[in-house]
């Protein structure tokens, strides 16, 4: 935390100093930098040219451009305004004047070529147009069908070089695909790339499944399944398709999440009308009870360093958010606003907890600091629920459900993302209705 903050402060100082020097000297070494820690960011005008060579080069550039645009931090420029062509860029230096005149501050060029061994080689370069220098350049080799992932990796490299923060484009979303009438909803586990591509169903819908969450390696998903009419927490291995019930509990287990090291799953056990929080060690299979209270204690989520847990409880009379140490001690209530608070999820950066709030008949998604200060609302609606964090802690995804049809008797449920400014809300494209999203870490 402190190292990162110092680094950000340093970058900001460099950017400021560079602007001042540039005013007197043309030869300035200005570093193109977008500070996304402030509340109001002007999107950076960027020219993403088609990658020269193979036809897939144009598709790669489109995916890079779409990733950057969706972040709300970049404003890709219209290709029709481009003067210098992709082949000229591939065979020489940028003519910076050609890009400055269309107000581009950053320029991305690249090439895509097939190697003798059949692999695809993709190169890209990122230029600072005003400082007239290359900021970064990388090359990747992949099987031809891996081009889409390479595009996301390039978008992450651009995002990181310009903002100083890790990107989140080479990631996947696991979610619940919904279909059928609301009284007999069919729900399937589904997985897709962060931009909605490569959608795949992991279960066939015969069994009700809910609340999937990724392991830290994105190889496994823990979720709730009603298999055999016994609602229990399961683990699904994404590579093998194997499913396994977790633990041997005498009642319904639900609300699972992995610990940050991936060695444990924290979840709720409901038994005889009482719900408490338990920890299951995946190696020893040992179960540890963490709360012992007649109230509903559920929706637990670890802090990224594993030392603390946030959860919801109605022990104070209504559903509110609490924190406690990882061993169950030192319970502190952190929400005190009007209404109810639930679904707390600790940010991967550790600085915020995202939540769902129900107040005055409205649902909203918000964030709050772990000490209970700085509460902010980001999105609101008829039913907005279940935030999940992008791995860099700058973007959230959740689902929004609204009544449709005659008398509001049907439902439309869709996934949305929003950045922490609350100004860039985007609907995700999914083939069917969708809920319960969970964002993967960056794919290893």
């Amino acid at each position, binding site marked *: 935390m402190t190292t990162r903050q110092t680094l950000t402060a340093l970058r900001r100082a460099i950017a400021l100093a560079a602007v001042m020097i540039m005013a007197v000297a043309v030869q300035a070494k200005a570093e193109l930098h977008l500070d996304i820690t402030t509340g109001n960011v002007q999107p950076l005008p960027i020219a993403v040219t088609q990658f020269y060579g193979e036809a897939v080069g144009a598709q790669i550039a489109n995916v890079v451009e779409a990733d950057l645009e969706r972040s709300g931090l970049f404003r890709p420029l219209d290709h029709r305004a481009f003067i210098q062509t992709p082949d000229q860029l591939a065979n020489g230096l940028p003519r910076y004047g050609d890009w400055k005149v269309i107000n581009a501050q950053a320029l991305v060029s690249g090439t895509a070529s097939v190697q003798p061994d059949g692999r695809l080689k993709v*190169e890209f370069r990122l230029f600072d147009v005003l400082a007239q220098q290359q900021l970064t350049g*990388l*090359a*990747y*080799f*992949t*099987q031809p*069908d*891996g081009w889409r*992932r*390479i595009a996301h990796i390039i978008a992450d490299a651009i995002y990181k070089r310009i903002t100083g923060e890790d990107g989140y484009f080479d990631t996947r979303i696991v979610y619940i695909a919904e279909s059928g*009438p*609301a*009284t*007999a*909803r069919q729900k399937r586990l589904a997985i897709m790339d962060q931009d909605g591509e*490569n959608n795949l169903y*992991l*279960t*066939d819908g*015969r069994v*009700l499944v*809910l*609340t999937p969450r990724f392991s830290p390696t994105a190889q496994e998903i823990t979720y709730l399944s009603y*298999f055999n*009419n016994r*609602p229990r927490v399961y683990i699904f291995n*994404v*590579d093998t*398709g194997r*499913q396994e019930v977790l633990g041997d509990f005498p*009642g*319904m287990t*639900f*609300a699972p999440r992995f610990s940050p090291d991936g060695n444990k799953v924290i979840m*709720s056990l*409901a038994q005889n*009308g009482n*719900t408490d929080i338990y920890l299951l060690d995946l190696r020893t299979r040992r179960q540890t009870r963490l709360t012992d209270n007649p109230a*509903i204690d*559920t*929706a637990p989520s670890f802090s990224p360093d594993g030392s603390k847990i946030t959860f*919801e409880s*109605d022990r104070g009379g209504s*559903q509110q958010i609490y924190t406690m140490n990882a061993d169950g001690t030192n319970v502190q209530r952190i929400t005190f606003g009007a209404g*109810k608070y*639930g*679904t707390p999820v600790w940010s991967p950066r550790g600085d915020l907890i995202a939540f*769902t709030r*129900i107040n005055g*008949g409205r649902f909203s998604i918000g964030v709050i600091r772990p000490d209970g200060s700085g509460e902010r609302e980001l999105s609101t609606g*008829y*039913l907005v*629920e*279940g935030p999940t964090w992008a791995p860099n802690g700058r973007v959230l995804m959740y689902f929004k*459900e609204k009544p449709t049809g005659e008398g*509001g*008797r*049907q439902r439309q449920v869709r996934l949305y993302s929003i950045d922490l400014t609350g100004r860039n809300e985007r609907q995700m494209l999914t083939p069917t209705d969708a809920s*319960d999203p969970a964002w993967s870490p960056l794919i290893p």
Partner: protein
Amino acid sequence: MRMNYLSLCAALALVAACSSTPEKKAEVATGGTATTTTTPPAAKPTGPVPGSKEDFVVNVGDRVFFGYDKFDLTPEATATLDKQAAWLKKYGQVTITIEGHADERGTREYNLALGERRANAVKNYLTATGVDLARVQVISYGKERPAVLGSNEAAWAQNRRGVTVIN
């Protein structure tokens, strides 16, 4: 100009088709009965067979309702459960599953816990009146199986329910 070279092997791990999924049984059999019980079946000269599921639903009443975020039994609820208990004593061989449900105005996981509370409130009442514990199972569906569709209190009130299902 710096160029880093990174080799990336076959990108996307292919997800195996779900051949090994344990999902072989059909969807919960109780989902259908919940929606069909609000309207009585067409009148037949004979009526439901005594001791049958239909007999229980039509002549006893299979469900009780709860207040918003509540799991205590109302006088109407206990009156219905008294009738259920009498019927269950008469037909001592049947086993039951008590479903706990919530309306859509809560979060998913909280509602799963709330549904479990409601199902247990029904179970505790029935067993206290003498129904053998071994005959009773509970399951919570949270807000996953509404009985009635609608975006108003009248609809939500019918969804906050405990349903006694004859197995």
